[in-house]
């Protein structure tokens, strides 16, 4: 769709959407809000590609025999599903779209610290994305998203180097976004916007940025070494030549475990904003909530080897990593308790974003609690590399992050587009997604404990009933994901015009026009209030 059709309401003041027109004004923009929209388009595109792969996977698994796809094709499907969803949707989802749009506004800045680098991030993302598309269109890659050696380096002749390069480049996009956020939060806050007044959305994106900046380069060099090993036939991770495949796993998970927190922390930030707004309350335990995200970011770097309990690491290393994994579970628990308590004695309305927040808390709780199972060494040996783990991380990443992302998109849609989304459709979609999600992934917990390994193209017949349930759920989920795309597009032209603050929410972003002007505020605001000052905001009934 052409962005030029995004005309803001007629007879309206100048804003970031209508200030300039034409494709050039978008592709060369340095406005963080426009870049956020560029990201929104690109990641939506990749989300549906990854979703298409997921659907094919689920259809193949409808029957125990490998009948719909070839074995190699199936392997490519789950590989590219993982790579596209992790690196081209989940990691950029909330930070690069909502974070990009909101962080400068929330702290009262005119833009991110480095607007041109922000645009560069998007271009890197697109170049990485083009490499990924090249990989997909020219035959795909079947390493698994984890690239485990020596399989990926010595035994496959698919487009491993192109895929590694795609992720390498997209990784630098992620690093530069993180760098921009860190400097912005440190240096660009408006007068009076102290650290203890930052919205938790900013805190959680800040914590995410730390991980992006520290973790991503390690993945980058690891994938580079994999590529070099393939190109020059080196032996860095090849046991036949003295290399150590476990070293690869350590390096890979050193990034890819913290990456899990890249994929959930920003979602936690969204939920904190939504829950407070629709409960009309300050967040319960602000300081602990802020500390918890930082604790997760830091502890998240110390638990990577819990992906390797059955991989052949030493007994005592495994014990230390299990112990640390339980430590990182504590701040996650704190967050769930605080959100729940925030609702206590609130004034709760069930608008679409709040429904997504309910869904997030519930599904994240499930994902987190099953995390206690997989962190327990004895159980992990049985369930690792089975559908139990698949279900566990989909509860976090899809149940958690995608719910939060959609909740956030709905919550800030009036701010982004200047229009309201249709509330009834919004609620319906949220409900469909919640039901479809649980039907898809809950049976996978049972499958996993039964022992069905992941990445199986064909399986033993006794697993069929649960797989059929899961596939049925995936179909419902697909409908649920298509709906918002349709009605959000519709609302850009036909939606009710949104005022400055349709939710009567707290936060600087609601104190400027919808959509905001190019420099966000006509005057740099001076902050004199704490975050979530719902006690000072007059309560107006939200229109249904």
């Amino acid at each position, binding site marked *: 769709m052409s962005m030029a059709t995004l005309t803001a309401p007629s007879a309206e003041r100048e804003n970031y959407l209508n200030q300039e027109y034409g494709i050039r004004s978008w592709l060369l923009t*340095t406005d963080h809000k426009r870049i956020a929209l560029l990201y929104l388009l690109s990641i939506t595109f990749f989300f549906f590609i990854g979703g298409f792969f997921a659907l094919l996977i689920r259809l193949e698994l409808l029957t125990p025999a490998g009948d719909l796809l070839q074995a190699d094709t199936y392997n490519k499907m789950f590989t590219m599903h993982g790579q596209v969803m992790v690196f081209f949707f989940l990691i950029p989802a909330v930070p690069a779209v909502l974070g990009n749009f909101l962080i400068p506004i929330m702290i009262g*800045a*005119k*833009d*991110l*610290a*480095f*607007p041109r*680098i922000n645009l560069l991030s998007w271009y890197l993302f697109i170049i990485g994305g083009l490499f990924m598309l090249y990989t997909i269109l020219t035959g795909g890659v079947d390493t698994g998203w984890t690239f485990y050696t020596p399989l990926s380096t010595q035994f496959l002749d698919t487009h491993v180097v192109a895929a590694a390069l795609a992720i390498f480049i997209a990784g630098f996009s992620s*690093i530069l976004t993180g*760098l*921009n956020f*860190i*400097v912005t939060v*440190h*240096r*660009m806050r408006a007068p009076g916007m102290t650290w203890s007044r930052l919205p938790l959305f900013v805190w959680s994106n800040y914590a995410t940025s730390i991980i992006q*900046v*520290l*973790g*991503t*380069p*390690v993945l*980058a*060099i*690891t994938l*580079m*070494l994999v590529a*070099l*090993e393939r*190109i*020059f*036939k*080196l*032996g*860095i991770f090849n046991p036949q*030549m*003295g*290399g*150590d495949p476990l*070293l690869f796993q350590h*390096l890979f998970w050193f990034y890819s475990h913290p990456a899990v927190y890249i994929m959930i922390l920003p979602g936690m930030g969204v939920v904190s904003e939504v829950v407070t707004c629709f409960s009309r309350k300050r967040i319960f335990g602000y300081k602990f909530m802020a500390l918890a995200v930082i604790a997760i970011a830091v502890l998240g770097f110390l638990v990577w080897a819990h992906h390797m309990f059955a991989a052949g690491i030493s007994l005592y290393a495994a014990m230390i990593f299990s112990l640390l994994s339980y430590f990182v579970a504590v701040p996650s628990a704190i967050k769930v308790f605080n959100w729940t308590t925030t609702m206590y004695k609130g004034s709760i309305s069930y608008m679409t974003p709040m429904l997504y927040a309910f869904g997030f808390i519930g599904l994240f709780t499930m994902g987190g609690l099953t995390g206690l199972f997989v962190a327990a060494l004895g159980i992990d040996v049985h369930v690792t590399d089975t559908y139990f783990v698949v279900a566990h991380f989909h509860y976090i990443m899809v149940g958690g992050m995608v719910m939060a992302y959609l909740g956030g998109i709905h919550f800030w849609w009036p701010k982004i587009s200047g229009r309201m989304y249709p509330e009834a459709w919004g609620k319906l979609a949220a409900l469909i997604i919640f039901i479809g999600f649980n039907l898809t992934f809950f049976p996978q917990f049972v499958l996993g404990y039964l022992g069905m390994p992941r990445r199986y193209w064909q399986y033993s017949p006794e697993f069929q009933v649960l797989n059929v349930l899961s596939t049925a759920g995936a179909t419902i989920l697909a409908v649920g994901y298509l709906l918002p795309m349709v009605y959000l597009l519709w609302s850009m032209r036909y939606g009710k015009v949104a005022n400055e603050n349709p939710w009567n929410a707290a936060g600087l972003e609601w104190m400027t026009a919808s959509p905001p002007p*190019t*420099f966000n505020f006509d005057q*740099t605001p001076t902050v004199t209030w704490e975050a979530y000052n719902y006690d000072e905001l007059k309560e107006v009934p939200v229109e249904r």
Partner: protein
Amino acid sequence: MSDRAPAIATHSPELEHHFSSLEQQLEASVMGMWVFLITEIMFFGGMFCGYMVYRYQYYSAWVAGSQKMDFRWGTLNTIVLLCSSLTMALAVRSAQLGRRKAIVIFLLITILFGLGFLGIKGIEYHGHWAEHQFPGLNWAWPEANSHLVALFFSFYWAMTGFHALHMVIGVGLVSWIAYQAWKGRYHSAYYTPVEVVGLYWHFVDIIWIYLYPLLYLISHKHISG
């Protein structure tokens, strides 16, 4: 971009529209470079980590590989880089004092040192290539543990190669700010790019300070005694 910031255009021309002061702009840029350098540390850290693991596992192969390094070239290159850091620092100092000619001269010397480093590295690379010490493409090792020494050389080429790539980028950046300085873009109130590129240059230098002993000197005691 000029049409977008009429309200602030009265300020210094170097001030970008979204900053409120030059000071804020400098602080942000310097901090940005520091954060970037942290990611660079993690990037090289991955290779250093792999190097250390294998050095522990295959110590004798590491010594054998390291003995093929010419420690005189390595030392010379270390000195060259240290000198380049000095001239870079002097360039930043000149920028603070607003001495245009001095900035340009020091930056040009820095470039020369940088190119000198790359030249010496090229000579070394050529020697290793000629002696079939490039694993995969051109590898022959007459002694024992061929594939383990190949592992050492894999790390040697990867680590010094990525370092050299950073040097090439560094020379490009310094050339660019030298050109800008020559045009008189920098003065004592605005020299952010010089400072930021300087940070990068010192960082690349420091990486070499770690590469030098790890690659050239670990077997030194075996040579002398």
